[in-house]
């Protein structure tokens, strides 16, 4: 079939917008980098603490997004790995282990635990999997209370570490901010490369259809175990970061409610999206704070209402906001869009919707 003029024009415009969006992307990264470096120098310790919290939970949500958003495997247990990482970090610090070794253990031990759980759980799908991951924080909290030699029991562990070195001239909150943001940036860059590469494609095909994955030589079982392991690793790392800024951990760190809120934040930010992960973390940290400032006794009510409102307006998450706005603008500019530029976009949406349902039934 001959190429119609419209499609050529569209192709040209795509390539043009492709290169502009590339430059825009680079500019965006540049501005973001400057903002990340400058922010703590001009903010109050309170703001720095909130910004650092965003970095912490961004890494936890990143792990969740890899297993749930990218690979399509429900996980209701991410808080268990966050808590495990925080406890390992506390133990290491109280026993005087060097920081980098502690960080390494905070990554490796949860990853091994996650892998062992996944080796059994990855045979299951859907709700059985949800059940097993749900059991992790439920069993983890009483375990943390019981093994108080290691965890400090219900009182938890208070640590005092990661003071800013004299030579830097930074305050503690600024120094901790730089440490956790550095870890978060490294985690995000690695995760971005991971999901865009061969492994990311195998995640996507396992999410889409396991039988097809198998026929392409991708083992769904191994892929799922890998996704879980990475998610647990990132959960453990976020636990290390959590301890770095909060300086305290207790069984409360790993409660089931945290897992649920992390899942909500992931979907709010944008499933299977790196930028969405960061937006989800911003949401996770800021909405309760802002709701508390509006009315401290109505925090839950306001956060719930905001959550519901975002779901209503942006079912694909905050990351879809620019696209949504663009569509709104184009529809107001042209009252009768005979050939809206978003058609292909909608088509992919429709194509992916039924596959999501099949996924759920299988």
């Amino acid at each position: 079939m001959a190429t119609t003029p419209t499609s050529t024009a569209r192709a040209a415009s795509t390539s043009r917008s492709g290169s502009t969006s590339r430059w825009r992307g680079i500019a965006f990264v540049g501005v973001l980098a400057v903002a990340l470096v400058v922010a703590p120098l001009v903010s109050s310790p309170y703001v720095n603490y909130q910004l650092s919290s965003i970095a912490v939970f961004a890494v936890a949500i990143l792990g969740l997004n890899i297993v749930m958003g990218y690979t399509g495997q429900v996980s209701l247990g991410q808080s268990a790995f966050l808590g495990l990482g925080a406890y390992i970090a506390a133990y290491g610090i109280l026993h005087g282990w060097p920081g980098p070794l502690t960080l390494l253990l905070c990554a490796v031990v949860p990853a091994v635990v996650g892998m062992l759980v996944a080796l059994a759980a990855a045979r299951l799908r859907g709700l059985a999997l949800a059940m097993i991951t749900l059991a992790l924080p439920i069993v983890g909290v009483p375990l943390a209370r019981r093994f108080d030699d290691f965890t400090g029991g219900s009182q938890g562990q208070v640590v005092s570490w990661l003071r800013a070195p004299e030579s830097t001239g930074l305050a503690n909150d600024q120094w901790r901010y730089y440490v956790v943001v550095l870890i978060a940036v490294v985690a995000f860059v690695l995760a971005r490369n991971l999901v865009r590469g061969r492994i990311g494609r195998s995640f996507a095909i396992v999410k889409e259809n396991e039988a097809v994955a198998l026929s392409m030589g991708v083992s769904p079982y191994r892929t799922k175990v890998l996704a879980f392991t990475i998610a647990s690793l990132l959960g453990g790392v976020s636990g290390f970061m959590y301890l770095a800024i909060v300086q305290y951990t207790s069984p409360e760190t790993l409660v089931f409610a945290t897992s649920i809120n992390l899942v909500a934040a992931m979907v709010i930010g944008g499933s299977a999206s790196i930028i969405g992960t960061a937006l989800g973390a911003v949401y996770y940290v800021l909405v309760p704070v802002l709701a508390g400032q509006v009315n401290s006794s109505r925090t839950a009510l306001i956060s719930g209402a905001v959550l519901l409102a975002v779901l209503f307006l942006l079912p694909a998450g905050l990351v879809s906001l620019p696209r949504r706005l663009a569509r709104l603008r184009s529809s107001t500019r042209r009252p009768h869009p005979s050939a809206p530029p978003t058609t292909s976009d909608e088509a992919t949406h429709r194509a992916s919707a039924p596959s999501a349902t099949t996924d759920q039934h299988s």
Partner: protein
Amino acid sequence: MSYFIQVVVDGLSNGAIYAAIALAIVLVYRATGLINFAQGGMAVTATFVAYALTQAGVPVLLALVAAVVLGFALGALLERGVMRHFEGGDPDTAVVATIALLVVLSGLSAFFFGYEPHPFPSLFPNRTIGVLGVFVSLRSIGTITVLIVVMVALQLLFRSTKLGLAMRAVADNPQSSALSGLPVSRLLMIGWGLAAALGAIAGVLVAPQLFISPGMLDFVLVYALASAILGGLDSPVGAVVAAAFIGVVENLAGAYLDFIGDDLKIAVPFIAVIVILVVRPQGLFGRKVTVRV
């Protein structure tokens, strides 16, 4: 021996509460394919209605009836007003919407009644009776009896009424049901309404023991989820058996295994559930789903 029976009966009465919420979860799952995290929130909201009525001097039984009716209305309303919007979309988004409902509902309860727990009058007299040399609380027996009645009623509804048949048809295949002229959306509303009404019963039964507060059922919800999944999400009988199993195992482990004790007893049923699921992924009573390519 008598101590053993007492522990088992207490476990069964806990299990009855888990079972009521688990049944509600199964009901919604069968109708919409969703795990409804708002189940606990709906139940607590309805229970607070009963609480407000008893505070106003209404007898508990009447308050229970009012809570069940209002719970039904609330469930139907939430399905129509909120969940309808997410049907047919990404299931993850729909599940998070139920989480949002949970947060909003407990926020609302806290708005009117605060977060601190209030005492709640019991439907059954707070006495124990001796049966065959064993002392069992009337509350336990009453809870178990009510649950059995509810279960039989549900079974009758689904097996021997036209409404139940229609609901099963919608759960099985919404498209075909719609084509055969069934009012699918209205049936979904009824499904949510029934689930919320069931939650109201569970809430009123458990409130005297737990004291009523917005977070009263958070923990029960977790047990109920475990029961529903262990029993196989499409099997009401399975959910009840699993809930009884979880309640009894938890109580026995807490009572007899010294190193487990009261704090770790929750771990025992969950570890049992994990082992069972790894061996039998579809749950105890669930049908095995064959995946077609």
